[in-house]
């Protein structure tokens, strides 16, 4: 572990307790989205469009309605399109009309898998059989699948109502929802004066988060108008807001209970099934559960966008960056909202660049709307910038590590979108890798004639702060229960509880955390943006401080002294005036009944920003079979700045998991799509995510450069780890085979082609 300054002293933070929800999860008792079983519950099924682009000319559901075992049937008319408006989901803002149309088609289908009708039936197979009885007639339209087609003059326009924004100007009849530009300095002039300038275009595949749990939602719409929803989501309050807006129901009539969540990575922020389950439930008078199958997850939920990124970079004779420009174009899917903002701010964030221009385009195409995918938009952009840097270093004959260190962004560096970095860990990560055994080791040649190479890349993710609530209840036995509002995807119950425990002076095990429903905890923004341990942790600290403060008052009452005379040190309440008077937390808690009753306090925060974000640097060794193009990952080391690692095991786990997702994206993952906009590889067999046999152990180095924005210095760390892998692998492959690939996935076929092109002297 690299520590760059004398750390704060902690008792709980930095230790590795067993997670509080762990026993339930290893016993199979934890209840995920599909595990909800309610009395008289029935099962929903969704009819999805076979076409990527078509007008709906007729829907007849009468035969399905008449089928025995069917309780309710719905289509677009049962969920009328709502007016356009802002739907603020905490990290992103969607449009209400587009969201309404995305969830259930009205006049037109705009992606394969677009829901056109739904049924609720006695069991799931009866529901599927009923779908076959629904008659839908389509007028098939030519789908717009490629970015070139979508942007071409005279392109088929997917949404007639879409008003595009081109550098702030309104544009009609377009598929380009947004064109933004970030700019400072004079990049053209700087390029002219550079020693070396290179420009390359990269193509990045659309890739799915690949969470193992399919979407699943259950809803009950009671006769009194109260709607209760159980769903696997990263954003229970976002679900509440979306249902309220789409079904035009009072916000407070809706209670959303987040179930355990089987992975999300951003993909479980959007709402898909919840309003359908609610509408069917209202019609049927019973709770309705709907699950997606894996094909629907691939076809109709939101993966990360693919696209093209053109990058140009200039350096002077010392290798110092003079200017950089980028043109980022992402396919948003059928509605606007590819993560171009983060892509633009992140693409050059690892560097000090005096002259910058970044153009970014959010482009509508006839595929399912993309969603956030771990550091949304940034792995794609960084694949381009960091692979380009790798090639630039080759051209100018400079060691990539020295190039990174020479040009690294640091405190005071201006990010392309404007902000100046506070203290950040970019250089710390580079130095951690430089000092690693892996970096110092020699990559031995293969004994079997295979080609080996080493590559590195850095990456950045800013993350968000935002709103969180945490309630702490002090129990009479001296333990506390803690309620928070963030679904726990990877151990955040524990990292939040540990921060409260640190303040309370209790062991982590004495704080019992739970994720509350939207009625039982104050508003909390989504589990996303690397914010949960950081921002909700801040709320937990706040709540714990309030509890200690209140407990001091109670203790003062018992000891018949003033509040000011009570100290809380190392978990003990001590009287300054009578030093022999001491209470443990437990003793004090046991006396609350005599001093005014329960202590149950809520900390709420609205944390501004992330405090600078988290940088990471990855180093990878690969081996290529020159006969087949097959790639093995031989060795992998990931270093990243955690600010302060609350639970180091789960920090390491985030580094490792992100690295392997990134390796998958680099080597094999893509939407293989027909000209008609149909994803052909919509199974885990053909959407090739890494198995345990495809990766080695992932070594980790936790760098700790404290975050000035958090009481303990904690940074959000969940997302950065997916940013460096693809370019690190690309640079290692180039080192191995002596040729460069500019497109993900860098699969065996493409590697063979690159080898053949090199041999033919191209």
């Amino acid at each position, binding site marked *: 572990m690299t520590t760059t300054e004398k750390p704060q002293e902690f008792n709980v933070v930095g230790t590795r307790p*067993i*997670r509080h*929800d*762990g*026993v339930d*999860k*290893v*016993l*199979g*008792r*934890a*209840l*995920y989205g*599909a*595990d909800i*079983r309610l009395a*008289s519950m029935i099962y929903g099924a969704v009819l999805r469009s076979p076409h990527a682009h078509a007008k709906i000319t007729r829907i007849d559901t009468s035969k399905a309605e008449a089928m*025995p*075992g*069917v*309780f309710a049937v719905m289509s677009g008319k049962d969920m009328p399109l709502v007016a356009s408006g802002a739907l603020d989901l905490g990290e992103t803002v969607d449009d209400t009309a587009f969201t309404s149309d995305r969830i259930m088609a009205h006049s037109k289908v705009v992606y394969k898998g677009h829901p056109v009708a739904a049924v609720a039936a006695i069991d799931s*197979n*009866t529901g599927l059989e009923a779908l076959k009885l629904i008659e839908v007639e389509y007028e098939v339209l030519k789908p717009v699948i490629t970015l070139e087609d979508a942007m071409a003059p005279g392109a088929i326009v997917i949404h007639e109502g879409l008003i595009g924004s081109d550098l702030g100007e309104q544009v009609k009849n377009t598929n380009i929802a947004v064109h933004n530009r970030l700019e400072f300095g004079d990049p053209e002039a700087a390029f002219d004066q550079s020693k070396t300038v290179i420009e390359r275009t990269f193509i990045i595949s659309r890739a799915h*988060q*690949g*969470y*193992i*749990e*399919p979407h699943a939602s259950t809803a009950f719409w009671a006769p009194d108008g109260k709607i209760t929803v159980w769903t696997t989501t990263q954003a229970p309050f976002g679900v509440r807001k979306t249902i309220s807006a789409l079904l035009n129901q009072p916000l407070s009539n809706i209670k959303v209970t987040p179930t*355990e*969540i*089987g*992975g999300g*990575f951003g993909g479980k922020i959007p709402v898909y099934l919840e309003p359908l389950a609610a509408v069917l439930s209202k019609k049927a008078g019973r709770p309705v559960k709907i699950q997606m*199958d*894996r094909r629907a997850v691939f076809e109709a939920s939101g993966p990360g966008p693919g696209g093209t990124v053109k990058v140009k970079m200039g350096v002077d004779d010392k290798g110092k960056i003079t200017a950089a420009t980028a043109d980022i174009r992402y396919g948003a899917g059928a509605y606007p909202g590819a993560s171009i903002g983060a892509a633009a701010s992140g693409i050059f964030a690892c560097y000090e660049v005096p002259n910058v221009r970044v153009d970014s385009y959010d482009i509508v195409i006839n595929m399912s709307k993309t969603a956030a995918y771990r550091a949304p938009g940034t792995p794609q952009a960084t694949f381009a910038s960091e692979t380009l840097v790798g090639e630039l270093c080759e051209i100018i004959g400079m060691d990539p590590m020295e190039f990174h260190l020479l040009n690294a962004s640091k405190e005071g560096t201006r990010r392309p979108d404007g902000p100046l970095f506070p203290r950040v860990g970019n250089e710390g990560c580079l130095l951690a890798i430089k000092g690693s055994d892996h970096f110092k080791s020699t990559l031995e040649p293969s004994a079997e004639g295979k080609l080996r190479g080493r590559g590195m890349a850095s990456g950045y993710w800013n993350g968000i702060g935002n709103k969180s609530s945490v309630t702490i209840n002090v129990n009479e036995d001296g333990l506390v229960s803690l309620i928070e509002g963030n679904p726990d*995807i*990877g*151990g955040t119950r524990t990292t939040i509880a540990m921060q409260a425990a640190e303040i309370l002076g209790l062991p982590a095990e004495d704080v019992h955390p739970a994720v509350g429903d939207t009625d039982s905890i104050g508003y909390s923004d989504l589990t996303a943006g690397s914010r949960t341990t950081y921002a909700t942790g801040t709320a937990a600290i706040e709540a714990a401080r309030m509890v200690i403060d209140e407990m001091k008052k109670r203790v003062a009452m018992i000891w018949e002294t003033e509040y000011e005379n009570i100290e809380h040190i190392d978990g003990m309440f001590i009287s300054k005036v009578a030093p022999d008077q001491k209470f443990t937390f437990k003793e004090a808690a046991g006396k609350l009944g005599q001093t005014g009753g329960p202590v149950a306090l809520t900390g709420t925060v609205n944390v501004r920003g992330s405090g600078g974000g988290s940088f990471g640097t990855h180093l990878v060794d690969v081996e290529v079979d020159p006969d087949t193009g097959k790639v093995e990952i031989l060795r992998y080391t990931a270093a990243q700045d955690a600010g302060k690692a609350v*639970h180091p*095991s*789960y920090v*390491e*786990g*985030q580094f*490792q*998991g*992100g*690295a*392997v*997702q990134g390796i998958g994206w680099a080597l094999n993952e893509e939407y293989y799509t027909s000209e008609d906009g149909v994803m052909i590889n919509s*199974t*885990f067999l053909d959407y090739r*995510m*890494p*198995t*345990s*046999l495809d*990766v080695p152990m*992932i070594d980790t180095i936790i760098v700790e450069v404290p975050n000035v924005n958090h009481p303990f210095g904690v940074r959000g760390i969940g997302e950065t780890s997916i940013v460096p892998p693809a370019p690190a692998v690309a640079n290692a492959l180039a080192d191995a085979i002596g040729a460069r690939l500019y497109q993900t996935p860098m699969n065996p076929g493409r590697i063979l082609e690159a080898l053949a092109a090199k041999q033919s002297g191209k």
Partner: protein
Amino acid sequence: MTQIPEQQFVHKVPVQCTLNGQSTEFLAAPYLSLLEILRETLGLTGTKEGCNDGNCGACTVNVDGRIVDSCLMLGVEAQGKNIETIEGVAPAGGLHPLQQAFLEEAALQCGICTPGFLVSAKALLEAEPNADEHRIRLWLAGNLCRCTGYDKIIRAVEKAREEMK
């Protein structure tokens, strides 16, 4: 409640098996998978559906000492079989060494794949108490995990292997 006319059904079949050590009887529509029977008919929701086509291993159960994807076996095929699900892995009042190791090594993040991994790994260590890292990775290749990058899962299995010796 709407009653479904008899002719709509393919008749359900009575099935008798041993489930987590207990003799168990149930009625199964013949076209339902063992996964659906476990989850919907028997309420054992610890066995998860990830893909429903045998490519993720989240629904892994042990049938007569062999691990299978319960989505690729019919419930009626359970007749006469000895079946163990995640709910049967822990001894009464305790945890199996693998479960303990998964907790200590932080081998789960979201936890949805965990039941499948535990059932698979238990079968491995029972069959091959000395399985090395490569063998563990090969054996578990039918179980997908998207959160951990597998590192901590492999370490947990190695730790349990030592514990079980």
